[in-house]
């Protein structure tokens, strides 16, 4: 292994190590946030129970699962975006941003480290969230192919990370409003992706946006895997668009971040708060 590659791998490990320390130090905050997410998911999934109560006729089990998958993917995407946005925002708040950005760590490796940690952390939380809420509603899903759903989620994560890199740069360009703009981007992505409804109910122009959103394929694929037991091979129609979007969004995300970093260095914004 070349010295340069070893250096980068050690640096990648450092990014993950730092995030593990932070999770350890903020564990009670993490637990509280998880409980909030569970409560939030329950309020959404209860809608399936509520429709028959007001006279609607639906397959409650099926709609419950559709809503649950939507809520879990919303939560997962939120984690990915939050962690990537923290690449800049949290470091600025703590005051470490200058030390991290002046370290001899390449930016792709830095962002990849944040992305890898986000995937592992997000998957653990998503699995726990799904398990807790499914158990609460006593969902019986004998045909579910959880392995295929997980594979799909991980493939989709490549695209989510690419998009997350683009939103991560926002706090660098605009220290005051950047983080909030990241939330706006996350919300828009989910609105057009059919988080709690089929994209066919959207206006035509939004349906076109749904076609380029990785969340559309992630939601559709996960629902097929869990409701119909679709395996990885039969999910190819969802997997290949995700691979294509990932192949475009990651280099684009890196380019956007680099351009934003250069702008910040030019205008003196690469610094701690205050």
């Amino acid at each position, binding site marked *: 292994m070349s010295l340069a590659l070893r250096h980068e791998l050690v640096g990648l490990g450092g*990014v993950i190590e730092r995030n593990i320390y932070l999770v350890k130090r903020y564990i009670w905050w993490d637990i509280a946030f998880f409980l909030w997410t569970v409560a939030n998911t329950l309020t959404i999934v209860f809608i399936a129970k509520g429709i028959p109560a007001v006279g609607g006729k639906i397959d409650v089990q099926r709609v419950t699962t559709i809503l649950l998958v939507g809520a879990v993917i919303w939560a997962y995407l939120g984690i990915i975006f939050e962690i990537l946005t923290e690449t800049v925002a949290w470091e600025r708040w703590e005051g470490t941003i*200058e030390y991290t950005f002046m*370290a001899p760590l390449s930016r792709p490796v830095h962002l990849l480290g944040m992305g890898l940690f986000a995937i592992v952390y997000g998957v653990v939380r998503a699995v726990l969230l799904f398990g807790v809420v499914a158990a609460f509603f006593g969902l019986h899903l004998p045909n579910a192919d959880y392995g295929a759903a997980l594979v799909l989620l991980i493939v989709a994560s490549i695209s989510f990370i690419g998009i997350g890199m683009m939103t991560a740069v926002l706090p660098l360009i605009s220290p005051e409003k950047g983080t909030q703009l990241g939330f706006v981007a996350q919300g828009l992505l989910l609105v057009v992706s059919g988080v709690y409804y089929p994209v066919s109910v959207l206006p035509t122009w939004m349906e076109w946006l749904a076609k380029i959103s990785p969340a559309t394929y992630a939601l559709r694929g996960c629902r097929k895997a869990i409701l119909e037991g679709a395996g990885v091979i039969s999910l190819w129609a969802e997997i290949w668009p995700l691979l294509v979007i990932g192949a475009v969004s990651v280099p684009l995300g890196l380019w956007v971040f680099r351009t934003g970093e250069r702008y910040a260095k030019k205008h003196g914004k690469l610094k*701690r708060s205050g």
Partner: protein
Amino acid sequence: MRALEVHNLRKEFVRREGRSRRRVPALGGVSFVVERGECVAILGPNGSGKSTLVRLLSTLLLPDGGSATVFGHDAERETRAVRKLINRVSVEASFFKKMSAVENLSYAARFYGLRGSETREQIPEILTRVGFPEDRRAEPMENLSRGMQQKVALARALLTSPILLLLDEPTTGLDPRSKQEVQEFIREVRGEHDATVLLCTHDLAEAEGLADRVGILDGGSLLCLEPAAELKVRYGAETLEEAFFTASGHAFEKGEDGEKA
């Protein structure tokens, strides 16, 4: 090879004033050279451009003109090479506050390619050397005094064995004892590590006590750079403060800000 060559380095910032914007010069054509192993102090009041200079050399800012090379590497174009050679201690304790000293040093060392097997012994050793108590190594940084935090900042910088150490007001805000300990440690580092030191400070006694040469930076211009004794002779002054007054035409306390220094 020279440790640092700065040639006509310029930086301006845009300041918003209501709806209009004004370009404020922070550094206006600064040139100087630092030889390997030398300790050079840049003396200047708040807003004189010291921090802008350090941030340009740390590759955190892009200059509007001129150049800076660190051991022959251009700070704008060869950032990776420069970053491997430098480290920095600034006035702020810049750490993840919930994390301990050991945790902060550990992940930071990885960014410089140091593996766990290398830092497992190095971190306790270096913390002992800076006088950081063993029983507080696992405590969150937020529980530590400013002096303690600054010792950890010194340890973080030294852990990566920089050959150019950038010190940006490292003792500002410290109590007299902590200040003295940090200054002693800077002397020790120079003696033992063959490190070149660029010390930006507004502490006149610190500049005189630690540096081989002292430069006066005022309003973004470097007015002079010579040994403190020669500086006093040149301006017919008994103290550095008097020399500053004669060189700049105003008292040392004056602060004018381009970007926050």
